[in-house]
């Protein structure tokens, strides 16, 4: 036993009494805790952010326009549609499934938006409703096939990829390409709607205040239940940090056109999905099903419902992404949703740290991943390279960006937490 007291002092919080726990309170303790997390690879999204900073620095060095406010505004707007699709991908990856059809579904949604709003003259709300309902219906069908017949989701959604691409072509039919008028509210939302400057700062302050309040009440509840809790100092620090970071970002973007409502919408969806995943029973069940479906079933979770709900989430978000994509392009055509939409959405989720094997990842993976991808693409766009070099450089930079994250995560698995 050496010189350590056998029983912990009774005053210690209920969850800190085990005597093998090394002291991690106070400033030094916090630093130690950070080192612990670094060594065990438990840094969350920090390494991805690190990778992003590296990319940004390199690209900025190559072309000083890259970090200009105007280009960053472009970046935010270009990330939103595919980013929303990537959110859906995160949720299917969490249950260790895949959806290869998000591109086609988004393309189909774009076609439906164009046909209903332009050719049939439906009001905007009905168009949006129809699109969302379509996405949900597709996800529901996937869920049924998956649950009833046990066909691998790879195959179901591969069939969906082909089938809905066909449907998209069919719906676009004789037209091939349909313009959305530039004065349509959808197009306005996706192209020209920016948050007024005063409101942008109000939003930033609101976000910081919300973080503070959440932390504060959570910590109070924990303390009164006899558990360890974040110190007041810490809580304030986090809120101030958020305030400063967001404030600087927003004021920088405001030098150009500012923060687009579409980007705000993307962030809002991310936060909602994050809440659903982390703070509700449904989210807990999603992680459980992803980690060990049999254990989840034995815990009484209706695994089939979870699968269906996740497929619905994914297809619905894909449809919303398609809608916004069409609005941003002010057109729907046969190419909508084809090409690398699928691969980019899946890659964004994976680059952000979502595991393809289920049970690990977060909604923030989508936002970080898509920003990595779009940064590379936008940065190289400014360099006027040959296609051949552009592809090669994209590959290399992507790999470098992710390596940092992987190396930190690897120490995690070598510490037994895969």
């Amino acid at each position: 036993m050496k010189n350590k007291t056998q029983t912990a002092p009774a005053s210690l919080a209920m969850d800190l009494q085990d005597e093998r726990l090394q002291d991690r309170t106070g400033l030094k303790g916090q630093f130690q805790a950070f080192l612990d997390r670094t060594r065990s690879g438990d840094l969350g999204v920090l390494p991805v952010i690190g990778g992003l900073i590296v990319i940004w620095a390199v690209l900025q060095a190559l072309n000083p326009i890259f970090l200009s406010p105007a280009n960053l505004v472009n970046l935010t707007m270009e990330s939103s549609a595919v980013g929303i699709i990537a959110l859906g991908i995160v949720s299917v990856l969490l249950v260790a499934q895949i959806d290869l059809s998000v591109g086609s579904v988004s393309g189909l949604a774009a076609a439906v938006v164009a046909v209903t709003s332009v050719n049939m003259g439906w009001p905007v709300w009905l168009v949006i409703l129809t699109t969302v309902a379509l996405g949900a219906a597709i996800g529901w069908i996937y869920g049924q096939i998956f649950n009833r017949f046990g066909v691998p989701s790879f195959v179901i959604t591969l069939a969906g990829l082909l089938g809905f691409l066909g449907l998209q072509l069919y719906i676009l039919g004789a037209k091939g390409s349909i313009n959305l008028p530039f004065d349509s509210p959808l197009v306005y939302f996706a192209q020209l709607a920016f948050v007024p400057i005063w409101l942008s700062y109000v939003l930033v302050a609101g976000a910081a205040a919300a973080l503070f309040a959440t932390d504060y009440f959570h910590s109070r509840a924990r303390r009164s239940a006899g558990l360890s809790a974040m110190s007041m100092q810490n809580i304030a620090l986090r809120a101030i940090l958020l305030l400063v970071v967001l404030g600087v970002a927003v004021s920088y973007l405001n030098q150009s056109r500012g923060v687009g409502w579409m980007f705000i919408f993307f962030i809002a969806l991310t936060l909602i999905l994050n809440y659903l995943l982390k703070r509700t029973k449904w989210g807990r069940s999603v992680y459980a099903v992803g980690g060990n479906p049999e254990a989840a079933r034995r815990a009484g979770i209706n695994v089939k419902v979870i699968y269906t709900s996740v497929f619905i989430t994914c297809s619905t978000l894909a449809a919303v992404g398609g809608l916004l994509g069409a609005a941003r392009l002010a057109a729907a055509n046969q190419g909508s949703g084809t090409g690398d939409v699928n691969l980019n959405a899946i890659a964004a989720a994976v680059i952000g740290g979502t595991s393809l094997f289920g049970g690990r990842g977060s909604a923030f993976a989508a936002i970080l991943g898509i920003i990595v991808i779009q940064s590379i693409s936008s940065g190289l766009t400014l360099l006027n390279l040959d296609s051949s070099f552009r592809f090669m450089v994209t590959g290399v930079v992507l790999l470098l960006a992710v390596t940092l994250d992987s190396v930190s995560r690897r120490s995690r698995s070598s510490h037994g937490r895969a």
Partner: protein
Amino acid sequence: MPSEPIAAAGSPQLLSLRGINKSFGAVAALMDIELDVAEGEVVAVVGDNGAGKSTLVKVLSGVHSADSGTIAFEGREVTISSPAAAQHLGIATVFQDLALCDNLTVVDNLFLGREISPLRLNEVDMEVRSWELLRQLSAKIPSVRTPIAALSGGQRQTVAIARSLLGDPKIVILDEPTAALGVAQTAEVLNLVERLRERGHGVIMISHNMADVKAVADRVVVLRLGRNNGDFRVRDVSTEDIIAAITGATDNVVSRRSAARGTGQGPTQETDAS
């Protein structure tokens, strides 16, 4: 040794199985199994490795469906089609393979499927309840916020046992609950079984440890190669008889080992095979 179920004295039957069969391909894992559990009764199910004990547990808890046979719960005939259905009936199970989600934390696993306030999880209450439950079982878990993957075998088993006590089950099925537990935790679990009996719950406990079985069980049901091979009142039977029923012979490696050491060494003959 054909088996005739012994009716529990007095208390109403909680669960009775008749003619349960289950095959996996060419392997017949259960053949014509009968089993009764009364309220406030602790039934130990024992048998050799591969005798079909866990398969029986899985049939009872809705993990597998039986090929044929009937299950009556509280007098009514029921079909247990899924684990959720079993839980609904009031059957809580600790599986031999524990069935925990490695990627979730201890608290998450404890409350999985039974979260407090589903739309806005009450993490604080759940954490407090977790500590209480785990303390009660003498668990040595440094933090309930570590993922299950980082726990030792015994710590995991304690979590699985704690899980089954949430909710208010009518019957608790424990498949080798103390296999990985330390001496103190084993004692706590045995205490717990006794408390469950006192509160009138039925308990089915599977164990290879004859000492544990003799200590807490009221009845011992022996399975051998997928068939019933004896149903004894604990107080009427000796460890040797149970072991003979398990191995199918009175002259077995256990008795031989016992005899060999009896002439040689220690004072712990009766249970050293456990």
